[in-house]
């Protein structure tokens, strides 16, 4: 099995920008819209290369979503760009009526998702967006893990007919998915095989999950790591094949436990293969200002937290009795 290693560091939003530029060259139907965050979304290169296919909407996200829905009616493939907060909660009804219910081929591309937006604080750190988007019928929800995967996902969603929510982030993070790795919507990526526990991670927590597997290996715990870049549709086959082997699992995401990847996994497991599932994510709280690393530490989203959750999952599997109830520190 291939060993994943750090190939460099880059922000996932730059992967989106690079993917969008390449799409501009490849697919004349692709157009882009941005609500006054062109630089932050790394859409500058597309705008410079294809000015007639780029629409500045100003700080008016509701209108941007409606424009995108209308552009599809002429057969175009619009990519909207703004922060995840303004891409979802702010425009929920516009997405619901004009895009999802109307079945429009809009690609909602959202940067600065989660705590790692950092210093701007909780007003901008949306931790509910995956839940909001996955609840809408017909919407595909994707949260890639590094620069290369974000670029590949940006390209792949143009080939898929239907509304998509593509979530990525602000900080520079490790690149570890090789550039030539194919991206298939709805097909989870097995990164490391293991026998004792499955680690299911999405977005920025995929690399920490691989690090957690290394930590656990030193304790003779064999952890399987699967990258669920697509939260919806969920790759239930990959999930069930893994837990049938390991009999316990951990989910890890930079998102509320309510509405996130872990919740989707739990729903499938409770129906198909009940087994211990520990969940690493945000425990019903808002974020706050700070450096991304410090925030991930404080809110329990590091490789050490994933490793500890894995140990708990294994204990629960062996004892077949629940651990003592513990309230997460940040939710108090």
């Amino acid at each position: 099995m291939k060993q994943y290693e750090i190939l460099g560091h880059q922000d996932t939003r730059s992967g989106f920008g690079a993917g969008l530029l390449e799409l501009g060259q490849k697919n004349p139907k692709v157009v882009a819209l941005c609500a006054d965050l062109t630089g932050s979304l790394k859409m500058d290169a597309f705008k410079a290369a294809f000015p007639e296919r780029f629409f500045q909407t100003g700080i008016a996200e509701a209108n941007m979503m409606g424009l995108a829905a209308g552009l599809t009616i002429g057969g175009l493939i619009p990519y909207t760009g703004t922060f995840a907060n303004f891409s979802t909660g702010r425009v929920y009804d516009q997405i619901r009526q004009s895009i999802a219910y109307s079945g429009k081929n809009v690609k909602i591309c959202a940067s600065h998702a989660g705590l790692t937006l950092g210093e701007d604080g909780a007003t901008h750190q949306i931790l509910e967006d995956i839940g909001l988007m996955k609840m809408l019928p017909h919407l595909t929800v994707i949260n890639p893990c590094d620069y290369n995967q974000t670029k590949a996902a940006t390209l792949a969603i143009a080939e898929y007919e239907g509304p998509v929510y593509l979530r990525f982030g602000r900080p520079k993070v490790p690149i570890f998915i090789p550039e030539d790795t194919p991206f298939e919507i709805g097909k989870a990526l097995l990164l490391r095989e293991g026998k004792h526990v499955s680690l299911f991670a999405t977005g920025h927590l995929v690399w920490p999950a691989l690090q957690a597997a290394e930590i656990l290996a030193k304790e003779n715990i064999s952890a399987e790591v699967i990258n669920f870049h697509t939260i919806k549709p969920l790759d239930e086959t990959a999930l069930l094949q893994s837990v049938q082997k390991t009999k316990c699992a951990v989910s890890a995401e930079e998102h509320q436990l309510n509405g996130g990847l872990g919740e989707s996994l739990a729903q499938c497991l409770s129906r198909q293969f009940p087994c211990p599932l520990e969940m690493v994510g945000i425990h019903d709280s808002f974020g706050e200002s700070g450096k991304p690393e410090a925030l991930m530490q404080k809110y329990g989203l590091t490789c050490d937290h994933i490793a500890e959750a894995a140990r708990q999952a294994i204990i629960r599997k062996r004892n077949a009795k629940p651990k003592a109830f513990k309230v997460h520190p940040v939710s108090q």
Partner: protein
Amino acid sequence: MEIETLQQMAGQIRRDIVRMVHKAQSGHPGGSLGCTEYFVALYFEILRRKPVFEMDGHDEDLFFLSNGHISPVWYSTLARAGFFPVEELATFRQIDSRLQGHPATHEGLEGIRVASGSLGQGLSVAIGAALAKKLNQDPHLVYVLMGDGEQQEGQIWEAAMFAAHHKVDNLIATIDVNGQQIDGPVKEVMDLQDLAAKWKAFGWQVLEMEGNDLGEVIRTLRLAKGLTQREQPIVILMKTEMGFGVDFMVGTHKWHGIAPNDEELQKALAQLPATLGDFPIV
């Protein structure tokens, strides 16, 4: 078409509206009746449209209804224009129908390109479709109808600003100024003040017309067509009477969203002679 033929069509569509809402015992007759001349003018005189519905709408004019609750007038117009069988009007608001309470694409009803009903969104969609026409070098136009109460939604003004800034000049918006909304007269609920001045200040070319005068509606829409492709979006403030054509429904918000009973239906139909044949009630 001769104006008399169009008038007959308007009379039949008004019968359809009242009968559909009565059958469903639910729906919005007031605004539908008030906008009947606009729909007749648009679909039978103004729109350059293909006989068979295509979602992408290449090489034809497009129409979007933003105030989706007046779906009865749109459904009747679409059926009478041949988009789907007139008999289907009897299924309005019933289970398993393609004629949803508010317009939707989900059931594949010909003529509908986006869902509407949650207000304030249709202008943005229409502008997006107009941008697509420009990129596709399609010289056809995009039309959109909004309500006056709907002007209270913030998204309308986001869209208004965008269209002027980006010189979206292949678009003719119309606002149904009937002065009524659910809770009462617009002036009392949330006064729009000088609506024409607002749209002018946003950079739009503003026209006005009497919406229940079929000849004037056709003339004004033609005038608006002549003003397109001049780097400025166009809006028509269309003065109408809510409930026009049925005396006891005229000019009151009471008939915004309620259905007539059996007796009221007969009173209404007595004022609206059947001209093209009613759809059968099954």
